């Protein structure tokens, strides 16, 4: 099967992925201070804008802003920044190597994959910093935080799938990158980063949660931020209405969506990669 062949070729090119990641990180972290700032600035900005929105909500509703709100916000900002950062870099990863693609053959999948892995490195630094800050402020992690491991795994697969699809699409249609930027800007409001899905009402909550990246962010926010189990449905009482903010089915849904996206990404990317050099 061609998918197996593709997977084998990508595995065979792991040294190239490694070299691309090293190159990107070496260039990015060349000045250590700037490198670390790069890794932290994006999630920090997301947290700050989230806090401003929460502060405005708190003012309007008369309910004070709590430390828990800020910490959950910081925790949810990390997967979002990872995904948003990976998308904006990966979308242009093929086009920015157009010159190389026109001149040399190599396994093309290595480019978006290396971009996502480089972003994962930044996110690891961001995660370490946020974890440290939370511990300093006395935030207690519960055992439910371990859910983050499978969720992150599927988030990574999903991100790779999207990276393959978008990098390929952007080569043939150069305005895809603008579309991606717009989606990233609005995505912050379509995902439960700033506020929980309950804010949209019972139906709105479900609608938000089936937005794939929202599933992962909500899962991380609930398990790590609020110490809740993902194995049971979770409800929030909003002005007397019980609103479901999590269902164990979403876990299966997230897993299926991420695997399907990755497979679609691998197949379509390979199908079109024969034409890359002519489009580049």
């Amino acid at each position: 099967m061609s998918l197996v062949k593709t997977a084998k070729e990508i595995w065979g090119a792991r040294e190239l992925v490694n070299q691309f990641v090293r190159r990107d990180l070496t260039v990015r972290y060349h000045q250590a201070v700037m490198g670390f700032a790069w890794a932290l600035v994006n999630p920090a900005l997301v947290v700050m804008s989230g806090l401003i929105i929460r502060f405005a909500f708190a003012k309007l509703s008369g309910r004070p802003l709590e430390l828990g709100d800020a910490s959950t916000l910081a925790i949810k900002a990390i997967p979002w920044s990872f995904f948003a950062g990976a998308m904006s870099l990966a979308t242009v990863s093929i086009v920015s190597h157009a010159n190389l693609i026109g001149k040399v053959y190599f396994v093309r999948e290595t480019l978006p994959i290396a971009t996502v892995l480089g972003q994962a490195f930044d996110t690891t630094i961001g995660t370490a910093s946020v974890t440290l800050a939370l511990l300093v402020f006395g935030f207690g992690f519960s055992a439910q935080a371990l859910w983050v491991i499978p969720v992150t795994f599927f988030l990574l697969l999903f991100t790779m799938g999207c990276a393959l699809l978008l990098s390929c699409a952007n080569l043939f249609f150069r305005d895809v990158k603008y579309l991606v930027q717009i989606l990233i800007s609005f995505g912050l409001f379509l995902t439960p980063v700033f506020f929980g899905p309950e804010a949209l009402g019972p139906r709105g909550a479900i609608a938000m949660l089936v937005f794939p990246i929202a599933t992962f962010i909500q899962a991380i926010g609930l398990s790590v931020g609020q110490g809740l189990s993902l194995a049971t449905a979770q409800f929030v009482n909003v002005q007397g209405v019980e609103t479901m903010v999590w269902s164990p089915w979403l876990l299966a849904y997230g897993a299926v969506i991420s695997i399907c996206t990755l497979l679609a990404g691998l197949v379509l990317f390979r199908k079109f990669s024969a034409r890359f050099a002519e489009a580049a």
Partner: protein
Amino acid sequence: MSDSGLLEFQSVSKQFTRTSTHDSLRDFLPSLLGRSRRADAFWAVKDVSFSVRPGEVLGIIGHNGAGKSTILKLLNRIIEPTSGSIAAVGRIGSLIEVSAGFHQDLSGRQNVYLQGAIMGMRRAEIDRRFDEIVAFAELSEFIDTPVKRYSSGMNARLGFSIAAHFEPEVLIIDEVLAVGDHAFQVKAFARLKQMATGGAPVVLVSHQLDRVAEICTKCILLDHGAVAHEGTPQACIEEYLAVRPGEIEAGAVSRGFSFGEFRNRGAGTVTSGDRIELEYSGRCESLQPDNHMLALRVIAMQTGLHVYSVINTSFSLPFPGLGEFRHSLGLSMNVPEGSYLVKLAVWDSRTNSDIVRGPQLQVDVGTPRPFWGNAQLNAEWKAE
């Protein structure tokens, strides 16, 4: 180097479209509604077949636009053929674009690993050959300096050196040979020759006909994407250098200048060092002297090298006025044994190009006293 590789083209054709296709959604989506434009397609490579077995070195020559670059890209799997099939058994190594993957901010050392990985080398393989690569490129002192501080020569030397230490089963060479200074070029060419004769199947695409003649065991001449001649390198080079008659006619009519008969007053084979007397006629209908000059060139047919070029202004010979003209021309053939082409042309000094390609004459030079070298110095060697 392995002798297990094999490279085969079976009636390979490649079509390109001249007009660019939609490259944005903004253009693409409306076009789905309207009628689609018919793309202007042309064949860059037409029905080309060849096979290269271990130990064979295939040269591919041809004028600009003949399809050489397209064949290189097909060989390197950068593009896929429109029809036909390409079989390549074994790991393909290319001496093409040898520093394409360099990142300017990284050191020479980091770039060796990066470029090596792009070429498909394993880390252990690069580790093992790293010192050799650096020594060959003569960059030991600068290997930890960022590549952006390298001169273009250093850049090219490092790129060549990485590619030259790859051990491919099939080797593809573009004329990247002109890298670095003269000393490095000599070294690079020696290395290349060593790789090319290492037993793997090799394809060499080049304009440097002397190198094709020196390295290749067989050759194909491309013309407008198709194979025009196939055979020994010498036969292909002679074919390549022969001007197609159609071109002369077309040039003459449009430029208001035509050459007539071009002939050798002597006959048969010329002895190296002897003088030949040539004559030619022509007619100038409307071409003004302006920047135009008559050019005479002598080309060695085995190698394609220009051994001699002159223009009329060096000889107090005025550019022909309107009407018929007849010139005579004497040449001392102080050249090694071989066949030479004497060509005439009208050259425009402003655009540095031939605007009328004139007739050509083949002169075969032999010698009773064989010698090595580039010029006949007519040695007189005797005991006193």
